[in-house]
């Protein structure tokens, strides 16, 4: 042993171990960075000695739990029904417009919930188009003459969120239906099932895991939503965290509510991960041919058309046209409110976040590939859990570690006799940090799957030809992954453009993005004056819709494209 060891110079040893460790170290560092806000929240919640718990329990907790659950149930049922039925119709049936609906059904994804909430309220309230029309029609003169449902309510919030979130289910259900071997369906038909029977006995069970994943993603967005529930005055957890934190000035209380909300999130994550694992049904048949299309005629075609048209109409065409109408009439007010500065702020934030997220996601995925030990895999997976954590929780968790860091830095400055002041607070670093925690999963997931397409032998070839891990990444992997990384970057970019709860809390004083501008104006009943801003956000949101619809039509196994 001694003699063999002597043959390997010690310096060589040390150097090699260091090199290997730097990638691993990076992976664990990222995980710690992502985990810090969540751990902060939990620690804050449990170290507070005052009996806020008891107080919360006695006063608001019950309402939050009830309202959150009701909203989740409403949206859950809504997105399942709309997402699955429309996906089945456009995948399996042919009726007027079905080809257009294939991508058009994704459009509501471009509309943030709060924007739709503003538009729908604007149209339905007392002075809105609908009620004015009804009063004219029936000759009513005041609100006492007739009954009209309360617009700012929990059911409205559920409807609005359903309309903007059903595309998650639609997207995954449609992908699942497309992946199914036509043989399984044809066998079901030859075994005597009707077309509807084969849907319920074969297609739906096979697609169920994908549908569950879609519903869970939609529900995570429900828990994250702040703009819609705030506008409709629905007392969910996220609304509650903001209320307790900002209005009651109790950070510990906000942290404690956050931990309860985290429990909700955890359930969703577990359900989603379980469903993802179950998704690996293996088709024994490799035969994929053009899917059978049932040509619908007459009444059936009409109802199929209505069912697909309604979500698109209400979730996209209505808000887009109302906003466009207002934007044309009120664009001068928007420009005067410093529209271009908001655009510049939004672009700066979102672009920086997208670039950083993609870089970190890429390095993280590559670190896992370099040494796929169980520890590093767990770390990477943990780092990609941020997408499920509502922005309100992250806001609580981000602000305090950075605040502590600030006071530490200024304390050090005091010792050195330099007045440093706050380095983090007042900059965009907290927002970027929050965005990164929340959207790293997108970038990491894209990097991971794209990296999977570069065969390990490519790594081996590059390495044996003298490339270091970093050179190999730069000259082999990166060029091969560029397209996917760009897509991931765009997805992160758009999500950041739409993001509201994190941005509201973590932005520097007097710093507005398009989202915060629209939210503030619309909350002050100035929706017309902010319409151009909202329209800009929706416009940016259309980019990923296009990317997704292109991907989904290409993803069909056995297709030549």
């Amino acid at each position: 042993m001694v003699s063999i060891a002597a043959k390997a110079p010690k310096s060589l040893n040390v150097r090699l171990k260091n090199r290997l460790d730097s990638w691993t170290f990076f992976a664990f560092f990222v995980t710690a960075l992502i985990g810090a806000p969540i751990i902060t929240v939990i620690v804050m919640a449990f170290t507070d000695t005052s009996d806020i718990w008891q107080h919360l329990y006695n006063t608001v907790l019950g309402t939050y739990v009830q309202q959150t659950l009701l909203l989740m149930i409403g949206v859950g049922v809504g997105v399942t029904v709309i997402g699955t039925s429309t996906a089945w119709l456009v995948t399996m049936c042919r009726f007027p417009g079905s080809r257009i609906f294939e991508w058009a059904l994704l459009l509501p994804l471009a509309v943030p919930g709060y924007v739709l909430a503003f538009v729908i309220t604007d149209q339905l309230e007392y002075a809105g188009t609908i009620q004015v029309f009804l009063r004219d029609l029936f000759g009513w003169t005041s609100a006492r003459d007739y009954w009209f449902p309360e617009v700012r309510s929990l059911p409205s919030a559920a409807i609005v969120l359903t309309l903007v979130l059903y595309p998650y289910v639609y997207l995954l259900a449609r992908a699942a239906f497309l992946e199914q071997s036509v043989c399984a369906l044809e066998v079901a038909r030859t075994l005597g099932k009707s077309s509807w029977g084969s849907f319920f006995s074969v297609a739906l069970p096979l697609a169920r895991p994908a549908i569950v994943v879609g519903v869970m993603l939609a529900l995570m967005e429900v828990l994250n939503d702040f703009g819609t529930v705030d506008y409709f005055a629905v007392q969910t957890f996220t609304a509650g965290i903001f209320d307790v934190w900002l209005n009651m000035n109790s950070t510990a209380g906000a942290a404690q509510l956050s931990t309860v909300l985290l429990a909700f999130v955890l359930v969703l994550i577990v359900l989603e991960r379980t469903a993802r694992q179950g998704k690996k049904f293996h088709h024994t048949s490799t035969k994929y041919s053009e899917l059978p299309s049932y040509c619908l005629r007459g009444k059936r075609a009409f109802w199929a058309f209505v069912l697909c048209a309604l979500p698109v109409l209400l979730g996209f065409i209505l808000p887009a046209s109302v906003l466009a109408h207002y934007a044309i009439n009120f664009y001068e007010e928007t420009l005067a409110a410093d529209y271009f500065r908001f655009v510049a702020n939004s672009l700066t934030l979102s672009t920086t976040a997208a670039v950083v997220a993609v870089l970190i996601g890429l390095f993280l995925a590559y670190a896992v590939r370099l040494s796929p030990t169980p520890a590093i895999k767990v770390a990477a997976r943990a780092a990609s859990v941020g997408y499920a954590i509502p922005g309100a929780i992250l806001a609580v968790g981000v602000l305090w570690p950075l605040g502590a860091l600030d006071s530490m830095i200024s304390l050090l400055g005091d010792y050195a006799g330099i007045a440093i002041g706050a380095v983090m607070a007042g900059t965009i670093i907290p927002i970027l940090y929050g965005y990164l925690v929340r959207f790293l999963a997108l970038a990491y997931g894209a990097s991971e799957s794209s990296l999977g397409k570069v065969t390990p032998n490519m790594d081996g070839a590059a390495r044996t030809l003298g490339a270091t891990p970093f050179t190999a990444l730069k000259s082999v992997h990166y060029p091969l992954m560029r397209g996917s990384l760009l897509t991931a970057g765009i997805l992160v970019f758009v999500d950041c453009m739409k993001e509201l709860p994190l941005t509201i809390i973590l932005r520097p004083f007097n710093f507005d993005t398009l989202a915060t501008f629209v939210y503030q104006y619309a909350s002050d009943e100035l929706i017309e004056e902010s319409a151009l801003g909202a329209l800009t956000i929706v416009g940016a949101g259309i980019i990923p819709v296009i990317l997704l619809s292109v991907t989904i039509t290409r993803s069909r196994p056995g297709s030549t494209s």
Partner: protein
Amino acid sequence: MSGLNLRAISHAFGSNQVLNNVSVSVEPGELVCLLGPSGCGKTTLLRLAAGLETIQAGTVEIDGVVVGDADSGANLPPEKRHVGLMFQDYALFPHLTIRENIGFGLAQKDRTQAHNNISARMESMGISDYADVYPHTLSGGQQQRVALLRALAPGPKVLLLDEPFSGLDVTRRAQVRTETLRTIKDTGVGTLMVTHDPEEAMFMADRILVMNEGRVLQDGSPTDLYFHPHDQFVTELFGPVNEFTGAVENNLIKTPIGDFPVTGHEDGTELAFLIRPEGFLIDDQNGSIKLKVVTARPLGRSSVVMMELKDGTPIEARVPGVVLPKAGQTVGVSIRPEQIHYFPK
């Protein structure tokens, strides 16, 4: 010592022990084949030599320098080892042209200098017209040549080939094999090649190491392995054999096909007695063993004659040329002693 030296290598993936105390050495200019069924650990051994797997037990030495040693924890990364590795799937970089692929391993400053060298090699392998196209436009045989040139371009101290011909169709293999062998021998680099095809190993190798279940069963020249196999597994590598069993009695074994003298085994030892199909000579005048012909099929260069003993035991013979005795006919057969092998059961 120059060349490649793998000493006492053991390796496991989880609880699956894929290599068990394997030692291999390759001299400069020598071509050594690792021959064995798939999953016997051959490829892992190549990856360990290249540094693509972290060594768990044993030592890897290239050109007299220890590059991997389990005891000291030394593990030089692949990019520092100067090995050329050619993969089964070639692993050509799809985003680089053929010339860029071949030049990938050359440092920037060497590129112009090596440019002529590469061009000459591409010329000699008949792919110079494809210098500026991308790999997916090439045929399998052309891709194989590019992969070989790419591995050789930086002038590696040792060349590792992982199933280099398995991606080619049978009609192409013979030609590409000859060409590959010539190219490698021209460079004079020591080569370790992995294959599961005995004929390929026989054709290419100066020395063959037969492996099974993570162990080396035999290390010898191609003719050594064929004529002096150490055990039944090695014997059967070169094709199915006619197998009989019997016990030794006074240095004699009784089998259904006759009694044969055996040496080196005590009385009572159960032996597997193996005769290769090509060990039979059909010779009505001198053949003392009488067999009944069941079928005879011509393969071109040789013929397969299926026969049976009186008790119905089937015998397969492979004889050169077109020899097609009629079914049902009884023929005289003699056996070449060098094609008989026996091992204790």
